[in-house]
């Protein structure tokens, strides 16, 4: 009864949602429309909203204009996967320690991790450049992976810690009483129980890693073969002309991997990310 809407109210709600979604989806719509127009048509004046020569040519031609395009998309996926893997390796033990164990300076350490969350790489670029140069990582995949991991560790620890805290302690205690070592308990009892949480955190880290590549790529990597998609897209801006339609097509194709992952897991992801906002 309380949730019943009158017809007028329903119309108003849908209209507002329509406006809101238009704002959110407008750039995607524009990118798609641009990708369908032949290049000459793009620069026609006055502006035409609709025309009859739309085609999918750009989706074919883009692979010829920027021969490394496939490589860039692959690089994006590869870098994000490596970042996710490394981040999880570092985050799992740390999150467990923060969720379950008591050790000196625990709260101070946790605040330090959260403090890292406030920075973006942009503040630390110069010294970070020097550190990566010292380690010999400039112009390799690692130049984009290593800083990526550093800036995702805090979020990872934060998310996984709150998930682990919800797992009942009794199982671990039982295993421990039976003489299982701490490491054994973590590996054989806690981790299997935490799989859903691990997936949520892993996907969140992957999306974060996919999103943050641009800055590190343009600053720490000059090797074209290693460039991820967001940086590689700028190759469509040539000396003679900008093939905007193909650039849009490539951008849309390039976000497909994360969009697919997101669509499959969005329900868990959203629930996992916002868990802290909901009162128990």
């Amino acid at each position: 009864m309380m949730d019943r809407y009158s017809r007028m109210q329903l119309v108003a709600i849908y209209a507002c949602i329509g406006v809101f979604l238009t704002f959110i989806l407008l750039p995607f719509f524009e990118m798609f429309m641009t990708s369908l127009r032949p290049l000459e048509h793009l620069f026609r004046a006055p502006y035409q909203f609709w025309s009859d020569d739309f085609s999918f040519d750009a989706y074919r031609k883009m692979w010829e204009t920027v021969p490394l395009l496939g490589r860039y998309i692959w690089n994006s996926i590869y870098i994000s996967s490596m970042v996710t893997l490394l981040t999880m390796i570092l985050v799992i033990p740390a999150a467990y320690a923060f969720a379950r164990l008591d050790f000196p300076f625990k709260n101070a350490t946790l605040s330090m991790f959260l403090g890292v969350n406030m920075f973006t790489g942009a503040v630390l670029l110069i010294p970070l450049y020097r550190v990566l140069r010292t380690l010999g990582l400039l112009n390799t995949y690692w130049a984009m992976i290593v800083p990526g991991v550093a800036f995702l560790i805090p979020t990872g620890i934060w998310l996984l810690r709150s998930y682990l805290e919800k797992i009942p302690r009794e199982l671990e205690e039982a295993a421990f009483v039976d003489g299982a070592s701490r490491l054994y308990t973590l590996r054989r009892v806690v981790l299997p129980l935490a799989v859903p949480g691990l997936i949520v955190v892993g996907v969140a880290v992957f999306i974060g890693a996919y999103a943050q590549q641009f800055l590190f790529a343009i600053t720490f990597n000059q090797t074209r073969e290693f460039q991820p998609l967001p940086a590689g897209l700028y190759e469509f801006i040539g000396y003679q002309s900008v093939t905007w339609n193909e650039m849009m097509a490539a951008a849309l194709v390039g976000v497909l991997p994360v969009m697919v992952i997101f669509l499959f897991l969005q329900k868990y992801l959203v629930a996992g990310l916002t868990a802290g906002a909901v009162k128990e």
Partner: protein
Amino acid sequence: MNDSISAESISRDSRAPQARRKSLSEPIFGWLLVAPAIIFIAIIVAWPLAETFRLSLTDARLGGENYVGLENYQELLEKKKFHQVITRTFFWMFLSVSLKIILGLIGATLLNAAIPGRALFRVLVMPPWVIPIAIGCIGWLWLYNGHFGLISGVAQRIGLIDGPFGFLAYKTSAFYSAIITDVWVGTPMVALFFLAAMQGVKRDLYEAAWVDGASRWYRFRRITIPQIMPVIVSMALLSAIWTFNSFEIIWILTEGGPRGATTTLIVDTYKTAIGNYKFGEGAARAVVIVALLAAFSLIYMFFLNKVNKMYGNK
């Protein structure tokens, strides 16, 4: 019941530990687990941060560096342009965060309405958050284009403007265009958190108010808003930090132009350090950023405590 059974089966596992309680003590084990992450952060974040402080006291350029004391900071204090950058940054932050919070609240309320199709709408709101900012910005770049972009084109058709209007070509319009894109990137996340908080509000509160004849607007103002206030405050302060740090959007849309109109503190730092190779002067700006961010987080913790006490959470 189930617990004891599974615990027993675990202990009977053939690969059960050989050593009984040769285990490490809790503090040592805890530190061992945290150590790898700490070492990583120390090398990649803490050390560069310390280096930034040191560099800010030098005139480091490509050639070399000399200690110059507080000269860089003094220069910043005296530079009128830098004062403008600071003012602009705070204006940028204030406007963008306010819009994100307002739109986030409206969006979350709409997505929370019990209507057919809401599951789909909730998914459709998320793409700006999921895709790389750099890619979303390419779409906006084209939208803002005066000759070929949709916004200028449609505005011409319905007679709002006479000729093509390049939104990123003029100082004022470039600034507000960049804000709109920043709001576009940030709103989905904010709306999502507000939605989750709204779903956590107890139904009986609404039912009691409904029985008493309270209108929807009244219920929203007197129940929803106070109940989700802690989340509103955290999101406002968190997005203040993110908005303050927002770099890619401005860089891709305008590179801080035209004539500095969109140069916020973070863009100024990047331009000084990476663009002009003035590492020392760039580092001084980075330290100003760090100091401001530290201030924000103190304010954040202070307010969060207060709000939590006021609304009786935890």
